[in-house]
């Protein structure tokens, strides 16, 4: 098995045989010619034909890649009409008595060089445009047709580089992937590959003529191509390709569609995220918001307690990039299985039932206030919800709200902008919160059921103890009852209720949750579209009638 590395343009997988795409050999007469006027006429006809070809490519590219990208061909047509370049090319024919081919070869190369010598990367990349139109005019003069170079079988095409016009001319139904030795992420070929979603590797220096005809797989995510991959690798990557295709199909089908049942019951499908780097997945999977942003990352990635400014920037970044979507940020949930040196937490006999989350925050007020101030300041940049974890009593919620209000007053006095529509909610993850749900609902805007801890506490089963597996039932009726009670209590007091634990993504429970009237499911981003599909097939009235 051989491996090549390159700059990946599209994250997908391409599997197929390698076909080396070779430039046509252009034999150019470099000698002195007799009839310059006839050569000038040949040149003018070849340019005119090239302009028509560029306009036709524009039409094709508009359909395949969109107007913005297709415009490169209009630019090519305009370049072909450039008086300076045409005059200097004709000058070579008449002045030096050379063939039209020779004049194009030399004359256009000067312009390509002019661009290649420029500092600006955008302008530098325009040299490829000149070489592209040069190739086209030469082919017209020589009567060559490059469309036969692709072959007739589906393949991963390998070339030194592709000119934009070559990329568009390719038959996409036979194009599995592209690999080039040169090329940059700025090139039009890269842009076209991206917009047509064809896995492509650029600057792959390992390319070798011996690859021609061999089986290969491009792993776009990792920027690698495998030549004659072994069976295990092939199986793994084939599986990923199928998953990608299934996801792509789901996206095509469901992107932008509402998560609503047949009879019109709307469920909000939100994503769980752990940090700013997850924002891309939220958007790519068309999540309608973020139902659980675990703020622990700001603490776990730091060597010392993170300051207000650092936290503010992290929260602001996420809120800004996802606005106007709601982003629910859960305040610090350190303790139990998540410990940090600088927090100086004592070792505990029973950490799951110990000093953690809101219990730390309410006893270390300055620490808590740093986070709340950062959150409030960030609220001005998007649509923020704040959620408190591990709540067991109304008194705790009131205390949290008081401290939050204290922070707000401080910030306003200091001249900061703070949003005035921040939703406040709590995690319902203790049996105590379930039993007090009616009272708690009167204090907050929303509940979010943390089903992992709720299951552990309700069943008194340590979720990290593998020996308890036989006793553990993730669908335990007590847990489902607790969820139902919480939803009903929330609704009695105008509080929306969501699920952000793993059960939320369990497709075998989606119907049950919709029956209860759950308002929101917050799940890992990958599960969003599958759930949306399931929800759109449910008839809630029928479920309730049964």
């Amino acid at each position, binding site marked *: 098995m051989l491996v090549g590395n390159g700059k990946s343009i599209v994250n997908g997988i391409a599997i197929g045989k390698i076909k080396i795409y070779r430039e046509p050999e252009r034999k150019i007469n470099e000698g002195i010619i007799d009839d310059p006027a006839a050569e000038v006429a040949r040149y003018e006809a070849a340019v005119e034909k090239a302009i028509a070809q560029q306009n036709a490519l524009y039409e094709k590219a508009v359909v395949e890649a969109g107007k913005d990208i297709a415009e490169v061909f*209009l630019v090519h047509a*305009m370049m072909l*009409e450039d008086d*300076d*370049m045409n005059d200097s090319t004709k000058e070579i024919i008449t002045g030096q008595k050379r063939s039209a081919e020779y004049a194009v070869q030399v004359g256009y190369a000067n312009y390509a060089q*002019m*661009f290649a010598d*420029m500092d600006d990367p955008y302008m530098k990349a325009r040299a490829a445009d000149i070489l592209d139109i040069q190739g086209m005019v030469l082919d017209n003069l020589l009567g060559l047709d490059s469309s036969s170079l692709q072959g007739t079988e589906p393949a991963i095409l390998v070339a030194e580089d592709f000119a934009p016009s070559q990329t568009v001319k390719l038959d996409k139904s036979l194009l599995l992937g592209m690999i080039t030795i040169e090329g940059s992420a700025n090139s039009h070929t890269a842009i076209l590959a991206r917009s047509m979603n064809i896995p492509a590797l650029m600057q792959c220096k390992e390319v070798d003529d011996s690859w021609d005809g061999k089986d290969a797989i491009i792993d776009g995510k990792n920027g690698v191509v495998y030549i004659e991959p072994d069976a295990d690798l092939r199986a793994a990557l084939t599986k990923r390709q199928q998953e990608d295709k299934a996801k792509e199909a789901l996206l095509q089908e469901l992107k932008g569609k509402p998560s609503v049942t047949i009879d019109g019951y709307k469920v909000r499908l939100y994503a769980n995220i752990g940090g700013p780097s997850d924002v891309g997945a939220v958007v790519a999977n068309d999540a309608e918001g973020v139902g659980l942003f675990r703020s622990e990352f700001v603490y776990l990635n730091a060597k010392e307690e993170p300051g207000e400014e650092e936290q503010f920037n992290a929260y602001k970044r996420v809120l800004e990039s996802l606005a106007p979507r709601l982003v629910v940020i859960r305040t610090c949930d350190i303790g139990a299985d998540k410990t940090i040196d600088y927090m100086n937490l004592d070792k505990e006999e029973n950490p799951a039932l110990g000093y953690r989350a809101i219990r730390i925050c309410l006893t270390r007020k300055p620490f808590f206030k740093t986070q709340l101030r950062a959150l409030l300041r960030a609220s001005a940049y998007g649509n923020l919800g704040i959620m408190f974890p591990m709540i067991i009593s109304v008194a705790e919620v009131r205390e949290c709200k008081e401290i939050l209000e204290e922070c707000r007053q401080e910030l306003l006095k200091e001249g900061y902008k703070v949003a005035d529509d921040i939703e406040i909610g709590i995690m319902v993850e203790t049996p105590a919160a379930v039993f007090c749900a009616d009272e708690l609902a009167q204090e907050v805007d929303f509940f979010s059921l943390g089903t992992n801890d709720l299951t552990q506490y309700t069943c008194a089963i340590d979720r990290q103890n593998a020996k308890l597996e036989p006793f553990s039932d993730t669908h335990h009726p007590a847990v489902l009852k607790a969820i139902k009670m919480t939803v009903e209590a929330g609704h009695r007091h105008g509080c929306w209720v969501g699920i952000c634990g793993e059960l939320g993504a369990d497709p075998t429970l989606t119907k049950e949750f919709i029956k209860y009237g759950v308002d929101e499911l917050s799940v890992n981003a990958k599960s969003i579209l599958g759930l949306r599909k399931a929800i759109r097939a449910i008839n809630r009235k029928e479920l309730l009638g049964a």
Partner: protein
Amino acid sequence: MKEFTFTVTDPLGIHARPAGILVKEAKKFASKITVYKGDKSCDMTKLLALMGLAVKQNDTITVVVNGDDEEACAAAVKAFLEENF
């Protein structure tokens, strides 16, 4: 003769596609339009020369228009630059 200066705000500078349209716009007029950037200059009807000036964001160019329709030409070119760059 009409003369004006213009500072480019487009992050890509005077780039290919709009430069092409600018050239087409310039060709509509009888006047000669010359673009100056630093010690370099070119005729606005020449696309490759115009791109060769490498006008970047925040660069200031001077445009000189000379001919029978210079009044209308300068106004049209100025408006086009402001709209597109």
